[in-house]
């Protein structure tokens, strides 16, 4: 009953408030008759179609494409990341799962429910419902496969062993790694990013529900960035240490650059991964209490940047090129040799596409401190030539290590994209 009243209220403001989707949804629930009589559904649709879809189109990231979305997509406000263990031992179950996931994700990324609204009261609704009426919020859903999907406990679980890329292996142990099992590894991953956390959660929840009996959660982590509303100037987001993070990132609009740094190319390894990308995830706890009692000078030396402007030492602006050679009057490099910026950059030959989010998970039960930090997500064409050498440098001498601890880690091969009618994973499983 309440629904009808809503519609009438809204109809006074038609075009702005009701999208075509809303109407269809409501019609599905029944009880749209009131408006039908008053204005005729056809007319109503034609009014809303033009205005509402243009507004919505800005918030929809196409799911289908040569490559998966969520990699070179402009970073959304939130992430809900999950790592999964596959429980089924049948390859056909796995294939069906990816088919079901593909269909559901295509719907979700358009802001639609994952199933028709059933009118049978004796069945649970197909869609869990918490995103009803919400915009697509630029939702992207990105799927990856981990090394353990191919071989686990020396078992060739799904007859895929011969397809495992040599790059898709567990990361080496880096100095200072403090990895915990509960935050490490996984057979599959889903990265759901959206400008609304409820929308991202809804996507993951429904995908996990679809996977029941085939795969289970291994670990899950949400992450956030400053929202677009809070940062209308769209500056580089700051991490929880208060510093701009990700100033040097390859340009996602430069296709050539993306092919060079991010997308797996023919000849790199097995063909099934062409147009896919390797994802490295690190859950990095940041000891923010400790950080907060270090001096500004110490903080800035740690990063090698000025906190306020984000400019590298010796420069004025955030995006000014690093000056690696400049020395102060004592003969020391102005950009300290153990600073995060200098070490990350190295000789500039390795680049990764970073899509990191901050996380805050309440309290660390052992210490009573915040459990907060960085959910570091980065994409690349070749981990052995990109993330691994960079991380080796950082783990050895990054001054930032005094304030952080790597608790979680995983590597996944994000599959290439697909067309309507196809499914994510088809090149691997077929």
């Amino acid at each position, binding site marked *: *009953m309440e629904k009808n009243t809503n519609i009438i209220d809204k109809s006074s403001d038609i075009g702005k408030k009701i999208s075509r989707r809303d109407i269809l949804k409501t019609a599905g*629930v*029944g*009880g749209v008759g009131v408006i039908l009589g008053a204005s005729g559904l056809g007319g109503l649709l034609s009014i809303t179609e033009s205005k509402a879809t243009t507004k919505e189109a800005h918030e929809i990231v196409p799911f289908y494409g040569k490559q998966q979305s969520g990699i070179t997509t402009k970073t959304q406000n939130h992430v809900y990341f999950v790592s999964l263990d596959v*429980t089924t031992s049948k390859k056909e179950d796995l294939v069906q799962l990816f088919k*079901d996931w593909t269909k559901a994700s295509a719907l979700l990324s358009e802001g639609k429910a994952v*199933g*028709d609204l*059933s*009118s*049978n*009261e*004796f*069945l*649970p609704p*197909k869609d869990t419902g918490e995103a009803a009426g919400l915009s697509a919020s630029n939702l992207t859903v990105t799927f990856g496969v981990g090394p353990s999907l191919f071989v686990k406990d020396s078992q060739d679980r799904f007859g895929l062993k011969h397809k495992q890329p040599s790059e898709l292996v567990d990361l080496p142990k880096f100095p200072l790694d403090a990895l915990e099992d509960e935050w490490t590894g996984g057979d599959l991953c889903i990265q759901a990013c959206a400008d609304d956390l409820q929308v991202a959660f809804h996507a993951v929840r429904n995908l996990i*529900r679809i996977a*029941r*009996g085939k795969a*289970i959660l291994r670990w899950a982590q949400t992450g956030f960035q400053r929202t677009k509303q809070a940062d209308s100037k769209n500056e580089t987001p700051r991490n929880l240490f208060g510093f701009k993070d990700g100033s040097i990132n390859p340009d996602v609009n430069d296709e050539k650059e993306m092919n060079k740094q991010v997308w797996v190319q023919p000849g790199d390894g097995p063909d099934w991964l062409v147009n896919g990308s390797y994802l490295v995830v690190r859950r990095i706890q940041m000891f923010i209490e400790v950080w907060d009692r270090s001096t500004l000078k110490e903080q800035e030396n740690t990063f090698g940047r000025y906190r306020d402007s984000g400019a590298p030492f010796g420069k004025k602006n955030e995006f000014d090129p690093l000056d690696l050679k400049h020395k102060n009057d004592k003969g020391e490099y102005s950009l300290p040799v153990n600073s995060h910026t200098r070490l990350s950059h190295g000789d500039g030959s390795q680049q990764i596409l970073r899509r990191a989010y901050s996380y805050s998970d309440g309290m660390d039960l052992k210490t009573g401190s915040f459990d907060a930090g960085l959910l570091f997500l980065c994409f690349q064409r070749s981990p052995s030539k990109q993330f691994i050498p960079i991380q080796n440098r950082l783990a050895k001498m990054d001054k930032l290590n005094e304030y952080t601890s790597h608790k979680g880690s995983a590597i996944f091969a994000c599959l290439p994209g697909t067309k309507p009618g196809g499914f994510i994973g088809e090149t691997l499983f077929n």
Partner: protein
Amino acid sequence: MKLLKVSGTIILSSSLLFGCASNAEKTSTSEKVKAKAPTSQAELTGVTDEYRAYAIGEIEAFVKATDAFTTAVKNGAIEQAKSLYGPARMHYERAEPIAEVFGDLDPKIDAREGDVPEAEWGGYHRIEKGLWIDKTTKGYEQYAEQLMKDVNLLRAKVDTVEVTPELLITGAVDLLNEVSTSKVTGEEDRYSHTDLYDFAANVEGAEKIYQLLAPALKKKDEAVAKEIEARFTDVYNLLNQHKKGEGYKLYTELSEGEVKGLSQAIDALAEPLSQIGLVTEAS
């Protein structure tokens, strides 16, 4: 999976649905749900009769087992009482969809500490605390006496229960939800740690309902039925790993990983089992 456009509440017809009050409020429901007679109505009626017989059988066994248990308590045979506790409760847990219909009796028989005011707390769990925490039967004779009375009353009342298809449809998943929310956490039998007995009994009770509805379900969706059966097998395989002699290990003997494994297996089973309402759809 293809979604079925449904046209039916079907079973509404003659039988009184439990919780039909909410149904009456939603007047719009009657528009969208055309009470079309399902082809399988007769079939479902047969099923409800069979379930009724099953549940009454379990309650009868529960009366006997409770008699033995309360007698042991009254006789001060503490070890005997402890060994009878877990197995006796299984009959109740299997028939829970029926047993808990009696909102006044269920707490008297099965309330846990804190569920009801201390002064009113009696029943199985009160005696459990005596046997395992206070390590005595002394002073618990009165609880044993009252428990027997309540269980006898339950047996008498059960005859009046009307078993509807809806009771079965919601009951099957409810039994597993019981497992997910209170057995998995180990809080059901928090003194004796015999939770796995209750756990197994809930699963068996759900399986019974499934078996009764399976022929109807297979006509609507063979694949879902197959999946449910495979998941029951998974759960039983896990439970069997925790058998000890005639019964089950103590819940405290399970590792965290084993508890998580059981919990996730229940989720994997309950999801397809929640599709059991498909039997209400007109074919």
